[in-house]
């Protein structure tokens, strides 16, 4: 039997969820033998090279690139999981949702006390991706199969969920696993 294939991505997240994944500590050593990693910051694979069993998404969508990556993950992953508050409901970046984007840009660039008033500009180069009007949770863009709560979800929660999904059994998420802060 071939190994289960895993992929991960960080969209508009802080990478804390990936850090929490790393907090499985020693369990990472057997894990890299048990599963095969495809597209992920864990390795160098940039494009999906085969069908993926489990895709883990950190972060919501705050710019056009995030949406593009998320759709690509949905297309290539049998099971897609929203990991953490940002993926599930936008998280901290979504605090900007009640504020016009223009105001956020102005505050950062036109009101910054460290920048000389005569030289205040808002970056606008063609190399910069398009920022969305607000931050969207992943399930508003594509279908999501599972949600792991937490900011970040604990390493034990990620571990239990991943094992259940790899083995094809139902997720058994007890209260102490999903309780946080």
């Amino acid at each position, binding site marked *: 039997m071939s190994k289960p294939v895993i992929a991960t991505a960080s969209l508009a997240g802080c990478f804390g969820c990936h850090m929490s994944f790393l*907090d499985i500590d020693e369990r990472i050593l057997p894990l890299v033998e048990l599963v095969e990693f495809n597209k992920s910051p864990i390795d160098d694979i940039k494009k999906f090279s085969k069908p993926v069993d489990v895709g883990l998404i950190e972060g919501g969508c705050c*710019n056009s690139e995030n949406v593009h990556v998320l759709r690509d993950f949905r297309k290539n992953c049998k099971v897609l999981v929203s990991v953490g508050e940002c993926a599930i409901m936008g998280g901290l970046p979504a605090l900007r949702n009640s504020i016009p984007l223009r105001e956020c840009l102005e505050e950062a660039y036109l009101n910054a006390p460290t*920048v*000389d008033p005569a030289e205040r500009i808002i*970056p606008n180069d063609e190399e910069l991706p398009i920022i969305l009007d607000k931050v969207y949770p992943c399930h508003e863009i594509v279908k999501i199969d599972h949600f792991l709560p937490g900011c970040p979800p604990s390493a034990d929660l990620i571990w239990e969920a991943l094992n259940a999904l790899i083995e094809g059994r139902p997720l058994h998420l007890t209260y102490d696993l999903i309780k946080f802060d």
Partner: protein
Amino acid sequence: MGKKITIEPVTRVEGHGKVTIRLDDAGRVTESRFHVVEFRGFERFVQGRPYWEAPVLVQRLCGICPVSHHLAAAKAMDVVVGTGPGKLPVTAEKMRRLMHYGQMFQSHALHFFHLASPDFLLGLDADPAVRNVIGIIGLDKGLATQAVLMRKFGQEIILATAGKKVHGTGAIPGGINKNLAPEERDRFLKSPDGLTVDRMIEWARAAIELFKGYHAKNKDLVDGFAAFPSNHLSLVRKDGALDFYHGVLRAVDADGRKVLGDVDYQDYLSYIGEETRAWSYMKFPYLRSLGKAAGWYRVGPLARLNTCDYIPSPLAQKEFEAYKAYTDGKPNNMSLHTHWARLIELLHAAEVIKELLLDKDLQGGKLVRTGRRAPEGVGLIEAPRGTLFHHYRVSADDQITMANLIVSTTNNNESMNRAVDWVARNVISGRPEITEGMLNRVEVAIRAYDPCLSCATHALGRMPLEVTLVDAAGRVRQRKVR
């Protein structure tokens, strides 16, 4: 016909940062830029939140070094509640120090072993499929286990002081919300599983030897790669000692002359300016006294070991002396020596953790103090990647009305651009074809600065790279993906 090469380190796909290199008809580099394409809007949306939320909110900008943001915000809010520098209860200040040195330890270990060591151990031109942490696990299981356990140790220290490994809640304006119980302390001093602070000190020393061995065999590369003169900035303790938690702001130039003399960071606006360029969301800070063109500086391990006079722990001080002797006591301007400096700091962090664990003040009962309210506060800290600035104004009804942040990676913006430019001009310019190894050299240059925006690379592996050669008519001539 001119060409444009785009390297997207965390790719278009991840959307954090990318590199564009423009070539003329002869394939010579005319311009290179390192763009940061992320924008969050934090400065605006934090307005209206109660000030005590800042330490728990802001850290969610970065899950790689959340403790730095947590503490920088707490330090700024200390000033707001009237318990600025020197006025915290001693237990609170030492618990925060322990938390911070725990984070320095885990972050430096993570960076060196997971991120940088594959280049050293497997080679700059190794197959990218194995040149990552999974390759290291395959190559040397013992070393990989050590790397995992060192990171774990630092994370456990953070858990014991902040309440959580990622995004803890320990520091509050004016203090801390817990002390260190003797059982918690003893686990680090004599844990049955052998994960003790003495073991960490031993492993940190071994890591320095590992680097020195590599350096001895690869002098030209380590000394010459992306080396360029610059100013260096960091906090130092009042007496000039290395200190990650608190101090005065100092900058030296490439020859070691003090260009910013030990000033109080509450007045940072008088000394530091920032420039915005249209092609990046990340600003370009500079020393006001030297102006935009000459005032840019480096921060981080390399800068810290250039600004400080000595290291206040014996084993790291010895390593520091050898390190300084290598440049005859002058500032070190060699980008790849950042790794050497980082490992000396790793050792120092472990020594300080031990010293703090043995300090009875950590079991003290007085955790919080408040004084006279102030309308604004500035909090600075030496984060793993360099000086981190937090500045807030708070209204009389406790709402944040202004926030200004200069994060460590922003402070290194110009330096990273220079490092990329060095590689573009010295490695890529004038070559008929772009090879994978050349691309990796661009990454190696950026990676030495451990930029937080490429969080991806921190986590476990390497930046995915995409290089596209585009001619002046916009047609794709060559594309390389790995």
